[in-house]
């Protein structure tokens, strides 16, 4: 049998004998055939026996006379995925190759990356070969990793591979291992070995773990102790994963460097002060001890303080101030250095620590002499204004404070983007439709969607055949089909209109909505907003197909969805000129969007409209459009039964609910049924909640009632509440858009912002902060109302105080101290009355900062009461500071 046949027959021994019998040239000649076989076997892996793979691996190792090619072969799938590497036959074949060949193969194989976890199957073979050939021990990352894991876990080796030192414990294995002195120093270069460095997990005590064993290796002189410590320090300074840092810190502690050794490595320890907290804490402790023993250069204390006091961790900074204090007490001659170093904490984010630093400075100021005063008062500008008076007393110099009256900084009022001119060609419509469909359901831009919808109607009216041709590349990859009833209607359903234009929607689907409720765009999970959108799309599809209207009335003029009255009047006039009757859904939406105006020119133009629809629109514009509804605050009872509980819906979670209701308004003009549903009275329970996958509030919803943000806020309130109560992600992102919409800002909108300020996710909170600032910049914010709502929500547990503190802090930091103060001034009484809530100190701290900077005055009884309680809690202290500010001047 030829070699190939032997491999196919899985005759491993036969292969070994055959390879031995062949000349090198004959072996080389077999390689292409073996490669072909490898490919063939790879296709149908599972149908071939493991022995066949072993035979193939052995044959390849024997026939690849070039060492590099052989190394590739041994690292390839034939060996790695089979049991070949532990087969005696493979070793047999390899050992018959020349020594030089073996050495090259070893070096190449040692460079192959180690598996991410677990054992390397070829490592035992590799170590065996290294030992038998006597070639230099590889020191690649992969080889060291594999060696390290092998010694840690000590998995059984096949009998024919030998040479590994034996022993039940790690120490026995390492102490007799000739590899150890060479490879141990390389351990410090490996990433992600922290967990295993703590092992082996089954070891009886620390002496049998790696840390203990490495110390013992150093004691026995097998590795150099100094080098170990150096490498450990360098590794810690280099950084890495927490796990690794912890393990190497433990190792450093195990080596327990003497004071002499530390003194020689003081610069390395200084470098550790900039490392992650546990490492820095260790280095700080070591250096403190060294200083107390009088072995640290005083200059280095200053350097260490500079590094540590710059850090934000309170514990480290406190310890450093303590160290400085002690150093100056021990040796008053160092006072000047100490006070200058301690001034480094004047800029610390925590005012408490600033105060501590100030105390340390005060204590040693006399001994330091007056020479340090100018430098100290310069540093004092970084202090929180609360400490300025104390600093001025101490340093006898005025601390520079920003001059002039307080100026509130609010972001510019955003100008909504204007909708550009209608799409000019069928090709443009195709592109825009494609762009809308390329987004997830709710993500498409409002302007893009509205222009594309208008474009479809417009160009279907002009030349439907041309539009159909232009849409072909888009509709080729987007087939329309009735989606069933498990989705809300979204911007993606623009596809329905596009497909209808191209004649791809069956007639019964087009007719169904006109005849009854069986629309392909609606189902039982359709929201009121989805219904409104569906009614427009159904109508647009039908009209586009029948070519009855030249363009849409409801296309907004701004990105918020608002439609200028003048534009609507112009469009209606154009309809009249062409003798076109508007679609009811289109007209309804246009009326909901029209911006109230008192411009006599526009009103006069409206009066000139003559058609029935034109008259309706004129009357609507005359009375100022849709009347605004006043919201009435309401609290839902805990455990109130959901209004409609069906599968797929869920109701409010148990507990108190702060919400609001609206009584509805009488309308002289009838709107379409779907539009009426949008503005109908509501008790505050809002829409029934659907499971989140069908519930996608989007900017398109806001664009349906752009001049009625209070109504919108109320109808979407459960979504905003979910951001804090149910820890949902994302719904708060609509808050800034809501704040930019028009109409009165009432209780529902303020409640929505209040929920957002307590949202679970930081990006949702920053959206709520955006909304707060936009409302303030537009002069629409009722600070006290928001403040009271916040107090109620925190009290009822719907908003967590730490999240609220974070939100108001970031709002204040932008320069809106006055705005935030008006809110917090109304929040604090509710939070501090009777039993103050947990976390009140943080809110008091923000309030104090805001009041100080915006020069707020006027006592708050609850704050005074808490401040007067006595005790040293932070709450009482912050209340005292605030009381002081409010009582000033």
């Amino acid at each position, binding site marked *: 049998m030829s070699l190939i046949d032997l491999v196919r027959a899985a005759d491993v021994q036969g292969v070994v004998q055959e390879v031995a019998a062949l000349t090198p040239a004959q072996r080389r000649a077999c390689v292409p055939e073996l490669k072909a076989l490898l490919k063939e076997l790879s296709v149908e892996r599972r149908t071939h026996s493991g022995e066949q793979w072993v035979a193939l691996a052995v044959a390849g190792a024997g026939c690849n006379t070039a060492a590099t090619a052989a190394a590739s072969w041994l690292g390839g799938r034939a060996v790695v995925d089979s049991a070949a590497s532990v087969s005696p036959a493979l070793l047999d074949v390899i050992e018959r190759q020349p020594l030089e060949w073996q050495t090259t193969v070893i070096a190449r194989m040692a460079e192959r990356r180690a598996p991410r976890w677990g054992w390397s199957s070829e490592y035992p073979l590799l170590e065996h070969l290294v030992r038998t050939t006597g070639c230099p021990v590889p020191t690649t990352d992969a080889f060291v990793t594999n060696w390290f894991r092998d010694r840690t876990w000590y998995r059984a080796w096949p009998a024919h591979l030998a040479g590994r030192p034996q022993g039940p414990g790690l120490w026995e294995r390492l102490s007799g291992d000739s590899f150890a002195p060479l490879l141990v120093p390389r351990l410090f270069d490996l990433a992600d070995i922290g967990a295993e460095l703590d092992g082996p997990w089954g070891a009886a005590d620390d002496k049998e773990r790696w840390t203990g064993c490495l110390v013992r290796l150093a004691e026995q002189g097998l590795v150099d102790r100094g080098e170990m410590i150096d490498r450990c320090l360098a590794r810690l300074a280099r950084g890495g994963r927490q796990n690794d840092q912890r393990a190497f810190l433990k190792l450093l502690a195990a080596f327990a460097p003497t004071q002499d050794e530390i003194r020689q490595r003081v610069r390395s320890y200084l470098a550790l002060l900039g490392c992650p907290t546990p490492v820095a804490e260790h280095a700080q402790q070591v250096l403190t001890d060294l200083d107390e023993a009088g072995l640290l250069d005083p200059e280095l204390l200053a350097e260490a303080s500079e590094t540590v006091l710059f850090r934000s961790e309170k514990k480290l900074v406190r310890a450093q101030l303590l160290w400085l204090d002690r150093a100056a007490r021990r040796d008053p001659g160092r006072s000047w250095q100490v006070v200058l170093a301690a001034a480094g904490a004047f800029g610390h*984010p925590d005012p408490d620590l600033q105060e501590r630093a100030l105390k340390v400075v005060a204590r040693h100021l006399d001994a330091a002499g007056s020479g340090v005063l100018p430098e100290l008062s310069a540093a004092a500008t970084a202090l929180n204004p609360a400490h300025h008076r104390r600093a001025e007393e101490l340093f006898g110099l005025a601390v520079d404070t920003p001059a002039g009256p307080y100026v509130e900084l609010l972001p510019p009022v955003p100008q909504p983007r204007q909708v550009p001119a209608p799409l000019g060609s069928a090709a443009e419509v195709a592109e825009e439709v494609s762009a809308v469909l390329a987004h997830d359901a709710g993500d498409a831009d409002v302007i893009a969607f509205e222009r594309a919808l*208008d474009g479809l109607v417009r160009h279907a009216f002009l030349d439907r055949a041309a539009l159909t041709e232009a849409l072909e590349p888009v509709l080729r990859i987007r087939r329309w089909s009735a989606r069933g009833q498990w989705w809300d209607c979204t911007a993606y359903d623009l596809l329905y209109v596009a497909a209808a234009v191209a004649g791809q929607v069956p007639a019964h689907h087009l007719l169904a909505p006109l005849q009854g409720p069986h629309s392909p765009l609606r189902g039982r999970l359709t929201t009121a907003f989805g219904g409104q959108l569906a009614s427009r799309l159904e109508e647009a599809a039908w009209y586009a197909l029948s070519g009855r209207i030249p363009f849409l009335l409801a296309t907004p003029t701004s990105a918020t969805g608002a439609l200028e009255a003048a534009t609507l009047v112009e469009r209606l006039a154009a309809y009249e000129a062409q003798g076109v009757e508007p679609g009811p859904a289109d007209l309804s939406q246009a009326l909901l969007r029209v911006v109230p105006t008192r411009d006599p020119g526009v009103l006069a133009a409206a009066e000139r409209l003559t058609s029935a629809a034109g008259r309706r629109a004129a009357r609507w514009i005359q009375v100022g459009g849709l009347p605004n509804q006043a919201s009435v605050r309401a609290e839902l009872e805990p455990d109130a039964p959901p209004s409609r509980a069906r599968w797929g819906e869920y109701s409010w979670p148990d507990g108190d609910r702060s919400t609001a209701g609206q009584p509805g308004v009488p309308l002289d003009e009838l709107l379409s049924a779907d539009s009426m549903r949008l503005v109908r009275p509501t008790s505050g329970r809002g829409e029934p909640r659907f499971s989140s996958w069908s519930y996608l509030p989007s900017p398109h919803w806001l664009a349906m009632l752009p001049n009625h943000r209070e109504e919108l806020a109320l109808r979407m309130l459960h979504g905003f509440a979910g951001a804090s109560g149910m820890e949902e992600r994302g719904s708060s992102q609509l808050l800034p858009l809501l704040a930019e919409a028009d109409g009165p800002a009432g209780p529902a909108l303020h409640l929505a912002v209040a929920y957002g300020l307590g949202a679970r996710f930081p990006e949702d909170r920053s959206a709520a902060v955006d909304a707060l600032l936009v409302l303030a910049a537009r002069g629409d914010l009722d600070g006290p109302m928001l403040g009271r709502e916040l107090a109620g929500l925190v009290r009822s547990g719907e908003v967590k105080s730490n999240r609220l503190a974070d939100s108001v802090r970031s709002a204040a*930091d932008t*320069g809106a101290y006055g705005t935030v103060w008006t809110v917090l001034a109304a929040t604090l009484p509710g939070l501090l009355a009777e039993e103050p809530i947990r976390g009140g100190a943080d809110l008091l701290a923000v309030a104090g900062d805001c009041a100080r900077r915006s020069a707020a005055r006027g006592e708050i009884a609850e704050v005074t009461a808490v401040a007067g309680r006595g005790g040293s809690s932070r709450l009482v202290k912050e209340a005292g500071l605030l009381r002081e500010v409010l009582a000033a001047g």
Partner: protein
Amino acid sequence: MLSVGRSNVLGMTQAVQAYAYLRPSAVRESSAGRSLALETSGGATPAGAVSNPRFFSGFLTAPVAAAAALLAVADVAAARYYQPQLRASLDPVVTANGDRLRFESFSGCCGVYARLDVLADGLDGDDVGHGTTNVDVNNPLRDALTRIGPSDPLHLAVGPDELEVTTFDGPMVEKKVPLPDRWLRGFAETQVLAAGFDLRAEVPAAEAVRFLRSLPRGGAGRSAARTAQWVVPAGRTLRPTSRPVPGAVCLPGPERLAALQRVLRYALALRVYGPPAVQSPAAAAWEVVLPGMRLTLMLSPDASRGFSGEGGVPAALASEDAAADAELVSVLLAWEPRIDVAELAEQSGLQAARVRAALTRLGTAGQIGYDTAEAAYFHRQLPYDAGRAEAQNPRLRAAHALVAAGAVRLDADGGSATVAVDDHVQRVRVAADSTLSCTCLWWAKYRGGRGPCKHALAVSLVRSVRGVPAAQADPVAQADPAAQAVPSETEVGVR
């Protein structure tokens, strides 16, 4: 000593960058004080290619800050901010521009570009040379850099001195590192993108520290990498915001600014640069001003996506007439720290607009960098075979294939074109301002935010051959998503 070869590892063809240094870079202590010796390998100089060039010998005026900043550059070179388990590390590149030294690196994930400019104020020594080369960075060097203290001066030598080179006979320090095409393309792309940036915000040191510390750190593989944040200047500080309001800068994958943490203590100010009027996640550059130095990090629009696909490059390459101009202009460059377009125009006899197009093209070939702080190009030649990556740009190759297959049919009026792909067609539309748009899904998703699609590229190739003016005179504007996607406020509403 530099060579770029292709090695066959397990059947996969992959380019490999080989370095050969005389010895490892190190901090050496001697009686004369400490000296930071950065070793060089393979470089371009005005005198031609040199194996181990020397560019500087002198003192760093702010040694601790400089050591921290160098570490930050090395951090980026060794980092992958996306899929961090894969490892890749190419050595940083140093450019001597006559009056300053620039250290550049590019992360393994192709999403973060770092550059440290050590300006004349930061250097105290001999003249700075001219040229570009690689510098060795190794673990002992990093360890030594963390131990640099403020007390004594630090000598810096970039490259061995001549005597050492001539008498050297020991073994070289050799390294071989994979050099992916994607990495090279991304590196070049950063320069094209940066040229479209303006200063968006500048905050003083205290606010810079507060802001950078407030960013999420994000461990490996955390979802933080997926969130794009927006940042807007507010008073003296920067404020996170939930959306791209006017003046906002995108901060995609904020944990990728981690390298800046090293230099926070020495920061004098923080400057942010970004493209104008962005609406979707976009690249931005974050510059920390240090004593006598500037450290700039540039982030790609998404942590999971490198710079290579941003599409500024293919647009530049597709205009054929820029090729000849680029060749002409490249001869005139001599490692200037600031390239003066007007001066170049005069020397070359080309119009300023053509010089700018030529510079963009040179940027794509790695022959030029862009300094956002100076708002000017500088000359440097990446010590890689950048032309190869340029020629292998996948989108451009696909476009050439379409042209070769005769798939492009221009309409009679020149206002649109049809591109036949397999069994279907895509329509490419030429707008009044000569920008191209397409019906394909890729275009629908990004709308030019990542440059032209292959269909639009193919059409512009055909148009340029037929003598129709090139579609994009300024490829940078083409790469700017705002230019197409955002209607300007002056446009009229729907009537």
